[in-house]
């Protein structure tokens, strides 16, 4: 297994016209505490802004949040936008992704079809996303982080 030792940068943001700021703030803190470099684009972030930031900071992951129910229309063409900016990053999306959330599996399929590597619901704890990203980036947890995980889980 290849272990990355260089600093790993993730870009975070709330897409579209959505102004929910609390979740993204906590996510920023969580990823920073887990040792990532975090570029938090905040709320009301366009596809272009995600792509620009990911390109500029050579990000390994782009994490998109959406809580107001319009994620699908906001994310149409998102992978194409990233490709146009030559961004090659893991992409996650999470939040309240559909207005009626009866069937999360269908929502997951919808967003996977849009090109996202992982899709999370609004109940997901930051630790789950961090653990997933570490696996996807083939990073091992340090002893310290394992300890912290034990305390906070």
């Amino acid at each position: 297994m290849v272990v990355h030792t260089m600093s790993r940068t993730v870009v975070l943001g709330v897409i579209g016209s959505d102004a929910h700021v609390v979740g993204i703030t906590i996510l920023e803190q969580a990823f920073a505490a887990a040792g990532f470099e975090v570029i938090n684009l905040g709320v009301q972030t366009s596809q272009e802004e995600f792509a620009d930031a990911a390109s500029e900071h050579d990000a390994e992951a782009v994490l998109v949040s959406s809580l107001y129910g319009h994620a699908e229309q906001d994310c149409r063409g998102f992978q194409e936008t990233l490709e146009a900016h030559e961004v090659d990053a893991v992409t996650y999306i999470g939040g309240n992704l559909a207005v009626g959330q009866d069937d999360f599996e269908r929502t997951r399929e919808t967003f996977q079809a849009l090109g996202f590597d992982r899709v999370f619901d609004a109940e997901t704890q930051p630790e789950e996303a961090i653990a997933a990203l570490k696996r996807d980036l083939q990073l091992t947890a340090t002893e310290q982080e394992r300890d912290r995980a034990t305390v906070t889980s």
Partner: protein
Amino acid sequence: MIRDERIPAEELQRIDAALRENWPTGEAVDFDEAVEFHESLPSAKRFADVLESANRPLLQPRAGVPRLEDQIGLLEYLHSEGEADLLPTTIDSYTRDNEYGKAQEGLEAARESGEDTLNGFPAVNHGVDGCRELIEAVDAPIEVRHGTPDARLLAAITFAGGFQSFEGGPISYNIPYTKRHNLATTIEHWQFVDRLAGAYTERGVRINREPFGPLTGTLVPPSIAIAVMVLEGLLAATQGVRSLTLGYGQVGNVVQDVAALRALRSLGEEYLPNEVCVTTVFHEWMGGFPPDEARANGVIGLGGMTAAIARPDKVITKSPQEFQGVPTKEANAAGLRTTRQIIDMALEQDIDIDGIDEEQDLIERETRCLLEAVLEHGDGDVARGTIRAFESGALDVPFAPSDSARGAVLPARDDDGRVRILEFGDLAMSDEVKEIHAARLAQRAETEGRQQSFRMVADDVDAISDGRLIGRPNGGDTRAD
């Protein structure tokens, strides 16, 4: 650069004239005629007088629907069945974004379909006459409540339309509400609003102004909210506002909430000119509500109890349907009556809780740190100081979406449930204050057997909707069985 100076009369008229061209209903605004209309209103509709002469906390809900006749019906219902003392007219989102064309489409769709296709009352589109019809129909004072960064036209039309109270301010309707509005521009826009209110005030029509105290509504440390209230109050006073209602949103710890409301009143009276009449408004919990009307009533009960002890001049009530968004009028009235009952049962009791003075003293010291830093940043000018202090992070609001604020401050509750600051960023607090906060949070960490971290913040954000005040690990469940 913008300064905290009164807009000259000719400049006021120039802006006013320009604004009126933004939307056709602007034409109808005639200041002298509007003053006459205000003078014709009975004393029971004079917002500032009613609020300032009350001898118990007055209750006010939030409410706004697109059509005029529906808004009249809604307000009459909340007045008679909810026993509201003061009434609101909440403005729709398109109007808040100055999208009067879209608001017009929504209003027309509402009229055709009979459905509420807008989330509030588009006062600009209803125009001066529509507003006056509302003011005349309803037998209580009505305030404009919105969330509009550039509320100049809205103010011009609603003031001419007979409203005598107007919520918002350049910081409180920018930092928590939007991402990209430039703070300097917003201050300039609100200087106009306040100058207009001041112009009416000079003519004997005291327009009440109410900066929005809860800010982001999520674990805002009291001193930050109070500092913003004092700054907006100073900016408004410069423009001639003489009736100011400073706001504060419940954090849920009774001692801290009572101390904060006392500090708000005390600092407001100290910092604002003597000719300004300062009142206070307490917002029932603005954070996440439990997804259950019964539990929501428990949250409202704690708010009412706190109000009975702190005795603010006004209370903005919540409804048991807060979780699901806009409440039915019945639920809105129920929230009012639940609050009224608990306030009236507790109000006459002498409930003097230990530790309020100490907490008030701490809040005042913190607020002074922030206000002094702002004045230093502006070389004595409040407007410039505010802009620069937000730029430097010396003044900051937690969970602020705005690019004009750093958003580096992170709050968390201490072991008693009081909101403290976990991450200060560059917030202008003295080392002594920082040490007090650190010690309180260390005590909580020890109680919970975990380190201080963003986890506490995340847990605290969810705690009340999960049924508790403090976000303890494992939900703090101590159920016996």
